[in-house]
């Protein structure tokens, strides 16, 4: 399984903080995002936005990053701390 987290504006737009998605060998971040959009509907296409950031196991990665079973994947808007 892949644990998927959503933060801030994204979490509110999707009305979802976390969900579990079955692992599919070979999936990269963008493939996972497409699967979530297919299942969740058009409002989820925000995951495919260029500015949406993705972290795998708490580290920011490119959208071509290949996932492993058990990974924690987080999607969020550009950060605004400090």
């Amino acid at each position, binding site marked *: 399984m892949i644990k998927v987290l959503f933060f801030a504006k994204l979490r509110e737009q999707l009305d979802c903080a976390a969900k579990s998605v079955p692992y599919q060998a070979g999936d990269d971040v963008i493939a996972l995002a497409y699967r979530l959009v297919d299942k969740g509907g058009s409002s989820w296409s925000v995951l495919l936005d260029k500015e949406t950031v993705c972290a795998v196991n708490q580290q920011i990665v490119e959208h071509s990053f290949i996932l492993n079973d058990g990974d924690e994947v987080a999607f969020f808007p550009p950060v605004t*701390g400090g």
Partner: protein
Amino acid sequence: MSKPTKKMTHCNVSIQLEDFDLSVETRELQKRGADIGGIASFIGAVRSSELDSQQGALRALEIEHYPAMTQRSVEASCEQAWKRWGFIACTVIHRVGRLPVGAQIVLVIVAARHRKEAFAACEFIMDDLKTSAPFWKKAEFENSTCWVDAKTSDTEAMDKW
């Protein structure tokens, strides 16, 4: 993450609800060695005019973060700065939760042998934190709320390093 060959020694990172005291934190760092010649620090606070808004006066910022990631992200910023400027010790405190106008948000202190390294490392950590640490601000106005957008000026500030 690749293991650094030499580990940074005194790096104290805290993500917390509570406020902080600059002098207390600075005195803690000053204990880290008689070789400290300069201590640079920065405090970020909630400005009344944080946003140009039609929505009335800003009351507060609500700061959300990604708990499992925040600490290691800020530590990574410190580690990068330490590799470049080899300071003696640093402290970073970032608050989360609801912070009213005037409240302190973030504190970065760097103690070094010389002022140049202290200033550079302190500013670098702030710039890097602004563009890489998973914090998000939601602005609370009198009658509405909205998420604060990321600033391109922050990305540009980071690019200069």
